[in-house]
């Protein structure tokens, strides 16, 4: 039987959970031989919403957008370094827009068959307003989703990978 996993996307949002997800994705890529891409979305939709809601001023919106662009560079560089340390090939990419829509778009366009995300909030809210963007992505993507938990165990697996 062929591996059901050929193209993996790991979503990076700058959280520790998403970095753990990247370590797990690297392990999985190594064992399955699947192609791996790390994806970061600069959430300009949220910035626009904050401007419309007048929580942000225009100069604040621009300032935060620059911050997010820098975050994208920093975190994707970090994931590239994690991959390089273990001799694993990874593609990194960023986009701007609505987080869950950009994730769905690229998964459909490029035929990813697995999305890997970091652990979600332990606390459930009764309100849809409190679904975060990663949770929204999990609900709407057309492919299977793997939620990575247990940071310590994942770190051990990652560390045990040969170069």
């Amino acid at each position, binding site marked *: 039987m062929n591996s059901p996993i050929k193209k993996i996307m790991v979503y990076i949002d700058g959280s520790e959970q998403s970095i753990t997800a990247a370590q797990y994705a690297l392990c999985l890529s190594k064992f399955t031989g699947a192609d791996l891409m790390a994806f970061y979305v600069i959430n300009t939709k*949220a910035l626009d919403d*904050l401007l419309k*809601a007048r929580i942000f001023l225009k100069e*604040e919106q621009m300032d935060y957008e620059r911050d997010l662009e820098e*975050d994208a560079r920093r975190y994707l560089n970090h994931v590239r370094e994690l991959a390089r340390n273990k001799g694993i090939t990874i593609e990194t990419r960023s986009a701007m827009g609505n987080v869950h829509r950009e994730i769905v778009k690229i998964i459909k366009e490029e035929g990813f068959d697995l999305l890997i995300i970091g652990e979600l*909030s332990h606390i459930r809210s*009764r309100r849809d*307003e*409190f679904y975060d963007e990663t949770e929204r992505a999990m609900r709407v993507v057309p492919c299977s989703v793997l939620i990575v938990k247990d940071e310590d165990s994942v770190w051990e697996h990652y560390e045990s990978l040969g170069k």
Partner: protein
Amino acid sequence: MALVDLISSEVVKVPLTSDNKPAVIREMVQILKDSGKIDDFDHVLEAIHKREEMGSTGLECGIAVPHAKTDAVKSLTVAIGISPEGIDFGSLDGKPSQLFFLMLAPPNQSGPHIEALAEIAKLSRSTAFISTLINARSSQEVVELFRED
């Protein structure tokens, strides 16, 4: 990091006792000081005032969202306060603000900061929920309103 993860009874105050903008900002920052979320009260106060000088964060529908980037916190931090009588916060519609979300983020965590603020922006469109929050009688009731039973 979801907004609901940041909310516990220690960072919620019902009711606020201040009756003007500078005082309520101090009272909100004091919530974070008392709950051990910040050490440097004055530094945080200055950051919030600096942002407010650029333009009031008093929105419509009785909500105000004073916020700032500051290295006085190591992670995204929020305080919630409710003033049933309302306080003049220079809001967009000229009405008193009753529900206050004070949010602080370290400079290198803009992503979570923006997502949490965006959740508040979405929340502000839900007038029924806002009304329920404003009528909450205790900090624990506010926490329970945000969480699933």
